[in-house]
């Protein structure tokens, strides 16, 4: 889809106002435009673009010193209503250069700026909360893993360090509750520092990074096909979403057009993943409030969806289904018929359980009015996915960017107005319903033909972008290949990176005992945001 001309004109005007007369906007692909590397391209232009309705997607820094340049910081700005993606970039001479923070004006940049700074050795200035984001305090100060001259095989050093400084809330009787990194349940590690007065949360500081695995570094130098396996392991519950985003990125790099049947099958798998997770989340929400009925029946239903995922891909988490150029396995007709028979049945079952669970008074009493996130905070913090839609902000890659096959099947995002836990639960419930509906339509309109297209050689150092509405929200993956045709740099922005900020905001002034419920209503990935 080309970008509409009036929008391009408006963009051009803003760019000239921000960067001077020399700067131009040039289309760089379907729905994409770019503003060439320029001083202030990040720190000056991005706030301007956000001011006219842009949303900060991902920050992608690359170490181009080997190419005779310095570091390049690219920002992907999304214009959801126009369906456009604008790449802006700013060059830096090298590690140690100063990166002017825009977090004060664009709070959505908060975590990603810190990641860029510590991974590439840039000095972050004017950031209100500069500090370690992924590497913990024990990492020696000079170690910047994503610089190209740092060996991937080299492990992170472990040096003595002082504990992290938290922002303090002062006042008589204010105290802290440190939670994690090890929790009593089987969940991922993360440290939450609550500043409370008794039961009231005054402020929450979230420190992650315990799941940092160096995924982005591991991509470097790998063959393109191997990258899929790595992408599938970014976040265990979004196997297919991440794989799909990676594949889309590489495919756009190689300018491959995917056969229609593969597109349909990918959508089918994506919805299946969404279903399993949304239903599982509803169960977990019930479990958090000790509502045994909801917890057990939603878990049972989640099992059904996982089993059907296994039927489609041979793996309960859809691992190995997505591959470059299409999908690895075709859906046999017998399977399709089984799915068609199963879908109405499971839908009735699911709706019955959800009707009882979400309508139960004791459940509603816990969900309503808790953990409210305002639409304003959603826009400011760049919240994506169901969390944004539960606050009434219509953000859905499937609808906004006119993706195939949703464009043809008539898709509109699910919205809930109030932004509380109930809204997020209801968004999940209704999205699951919509997914079931969508699966029926996908199966009915499934085109025939090949399921995989061959790849061509990728253009070196160009940026391919994958953009997928995963079950948790928008996944952005950027891939670049080197001259040898291997991966040179891959950057993935999981929706969690943005949404953690929303969680911290939503729980303020709530009760301590309601936090786990709020947390579960967002259900964010630690692994995906720690990479």
């Amino acid at each position, binding site marked *: 889809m080309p970008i509409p001309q009036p929008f391009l004109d408006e963009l051009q005007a803003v760019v000239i106002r921000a960067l001077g007369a020399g700067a131009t906007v040039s289309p760089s692909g379907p729905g994409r435009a770019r503003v060439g590397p320029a001083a202030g391209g990040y720190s000056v232009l991005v706030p301007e673009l956000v001011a006219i309705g842009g949303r900060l997607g991902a920050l992608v820094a690359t170490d181009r010193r080997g190419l005779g340049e310095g570091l390049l910081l690219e920002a992907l700005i999304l214009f959801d209503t126009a369906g456009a993606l604008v790449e802006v970039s700013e060059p830096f001479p090298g590690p140690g250069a100063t990166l002017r923070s825009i977090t004060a004006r664009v709070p959505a940049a908060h975590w990603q700026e810190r990641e860029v700074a510590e991974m590439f050795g840039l000095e972050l200035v004017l950031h209100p909360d500069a500090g370690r984001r992924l590497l913990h305090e024990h990492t020696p100060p000079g170690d910047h893993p994503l610089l190209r001259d740092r060996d991937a095989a080299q492990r992170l050093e472990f040096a003595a360090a002082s504990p992290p400084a938290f*922002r303090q*809330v002062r*006042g*008589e009787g204010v*105290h802290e509750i440190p939670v994690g990194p*090890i929790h009593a349940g089987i969940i991922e590690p993360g440290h939450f520092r609550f500043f409370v007065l008794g039961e009231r949360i*005054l402020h929450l500081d979230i420190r992650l990074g315990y799941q940092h695995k160096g995924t982005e570094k591991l991509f470097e130098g790998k063959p393109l096909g191997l990258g899929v396996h790595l992408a599938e392991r970014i976040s265990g519950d979004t196997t297919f979403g991440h794989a799909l985003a990676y594949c889309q990125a590489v495919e756009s790099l190689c300018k491959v057009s995917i056969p229609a049947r593969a597109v349909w099958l990918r959508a089918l798998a994506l919805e299946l993943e969404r279903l399993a997770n949304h239903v599982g989340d509803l169960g977990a929400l019930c479990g958090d409030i000790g509502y045994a009925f909801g917890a057990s029946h939603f878990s049972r239903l989640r099992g059904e969806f996982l089993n059907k995922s296994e039927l489609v891909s041979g793996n309960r988490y859809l691992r190995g289904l997505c591959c470059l150029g299409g999908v690895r396995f075709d859906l046999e007709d017998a399977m399709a018929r089984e799915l068609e028979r199963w879908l109405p049945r499971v839908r009735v079952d699911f709706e019955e359980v959800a009707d009882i669970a979400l309508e139960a008074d004791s459940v509603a009493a816990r969900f309503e009015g808790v953990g409210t996130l305002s639409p304003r905070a959603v826009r400011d913090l760049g919240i994506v996915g169901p969390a944004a839609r539960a606050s009434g902000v219509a953000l859905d890659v499937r609808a906004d960017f006119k993706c195939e096959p949703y464009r043809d099947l008539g898709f509109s995002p699910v919205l809930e107005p109030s932004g509380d836990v109930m809204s997020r639960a209801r968004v999940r419930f209704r999205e699951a319903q919509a997914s079931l509906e969508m699966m029926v339509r996908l199966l009915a309109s499934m085109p025939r033909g090949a399921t995989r297209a061959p790849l061509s050689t990728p253009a070196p150092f160009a940026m391919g972008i994958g953009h997928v509405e995963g079950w948790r929200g928008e996944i952005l993956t950027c891939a670049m290949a080197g001259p040898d045709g291997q991966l040179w740099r891959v950057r993935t922005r999981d929706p969690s990176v943005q949404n953690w900020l929303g969680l911290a905001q939503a729980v303020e002034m709530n009760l301590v005992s309601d936090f786990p419920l709020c947390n579960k209503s967002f259900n964010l990935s630690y692994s995906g945001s720690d990479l």
Partner: protein
Amino acid sequence: MLSLLFFLSILLTAASGAAALALQSRPALAHRVGCWGQLAGTLAGVVLAILCLASDAPGHLRFDGPVPGLGFTLRFDALAGFFLLLVFGLGALATTFGLPYGFIGHSSSLGTRDFCLGFFLASMAVVVLADDVFTFFAAWESMSVFAFLLLPGEHEKREVREAAYLFLIASQVGTAFILVAFLVLAHHAGSLEFDAFRRAAPLSLPWRSGIFALALIGFGTKAGMIPFHVWLPKAHPVAPSHVSALMSGVMIKTALYGLIRFAFEFLAPLDAFWGLVVLTLGAVSAVLGALFALLEHDLKRMLAYSSVENVGIILMGLGVAIFFAGSGKGDWAAYALLAALFHTLNHAVFKTLLFLAAGSVLAATREASLEHLGGLARRMPATAVCFLVGAWAISGLPPANGFASEWMTYQALWVLASGSAGTHLLGPIAAACLALVGGLAAACFVRAAGVGFLGLPRTEPARRAEEAPRGMIWPMAALAALCLFAGLAPGLPLAMLAGCLPRQLSAPSLLLAGPLGLPAARSVEPPLYPLAIVATLAALLLGLTFVRRRLGTASAATRVHGPWNCGYPIVAPRAQYSASGFSQPFAYFARKLLSRKKLLDVHARHHYSPYLPESLVLRVHSVSPFDTLVYQPVKRFVIRLSKRVSRLQTGSLRLYLAFLLGTVILLLLIQP
């Protein structure tokens, strides 16, 4: 013998005080002389008290005063003996504590303070012995004045000064009510002597009710009964701790003493309805006192609020006693009064203990706020154990003495419920209030002990605290032992108290329980034996240890390691519950009652977004509704009035005479 002991004790306490004042230029010597002299005096007083308790018939002592008819009359009877025992017994322990404490604490005005303390003790003793209006008032006033003089340890602090003046005003207002009550009685009896009151024919019911109301307000103000309590939590904590202990442990008891004398001796026959009023006020005081104590994070102020609570519990017993006495059920009235007196004794013991422990903490850390304490059990183990025993007792948990008297109060309410129709309902409701008080008090003292003494120290002074010298530990240990003793062998103190009961109430059947038993109100029910319960407990524990021995394996060693704490290795003092945090649910629950305002100030540098504030500060403004609704208007009125009066009058005796004259004229006008 009695008079000799009386003079010995009074003179020794007062004279050693005077000596201390004289030696003021050498504070250390002055303090030693004052303390030892007072100790000797109080010990003589204890003997006197025991003699009073043991004597069958009341002894009298009389001097003629300068003005004919205005003599000093004293009466040594068992009730006075009991309160005398509180004054001198606890006085002795407090002075023992005060000797080393004085050297640690404020050393500048030691002589003056000992002087005041001596006269304070002596005047309290005279208050409970006084047998005519003039003596009573002279002692009562001097008690208030010396208490006032003991208050401002630090003149420079505005709140301290304000608390002291509030105390004075409250005392005077209360005194005025009592005075009027006395003068009406005196007018009726035609004499200022209490014996004449006792002998006089009873007044008509409306008059008696009016006098009772005046006395209740007057003594209630002194006792810290809600809604006349506002001065108490402000004034008591600013005194040096052993003085606060005497104020909370003993001084407010003199008001209860006065109320008992009034109700049972001067105003007989009683009216049952008064009892219900006292019971209701007691229940309100108990619940609100406990709640306010729970929300207070200054250790001594918390203890002061808890005195309001305990006075409430005593008043509940007293109310039931008055009710039964008024409805002619002498044995149940005796039981309820016994419960009230027993709780008076118990509260005096554990409140003194807790204030002394607080003093010991204050001396070691100079911090009174729970938010700045913590971890003291490691640095001050003996003080911590004493405080814990006190906390256990004041929370009313078995087998300490607090439980014994609260249980008796429950029993009294239980029989109240089987009274006439209207009181059916009050019994269980008051019992529910008492249960609520128990729960709140337990929460309050778990918090005080847990936040103050356990966990990690929250500030540097708490980290560096040193155990109190032995001279301060002994009195606390003695009091702690008393708490347990009175809880395990409640029959002994009860037997003593049974001798103090007013003549018209006697219930020998109640004391069949023996020295170890806690008698039930209805003699058909068996008594409770705390020692039996403790013995069973011990047996259970022994059995359990045996089982544990048999089950334990050789590899099952005990290791000491950092707390689990969610895998976060650093345990910070700030990461434990604070006192305010602990009581926040209660504050939320009672928010309609408190009018507290909380503000979270979010400071952000101007170009930083509101999502990432520079700093956050929580401010809490807490305003007591009693302050704004009841006390401030009264205070303003009294100040205006006293300004006006002071323009006309100077000496306080003449002021009283004017009161007297005015009242007498008024009464003559009113009475047909």
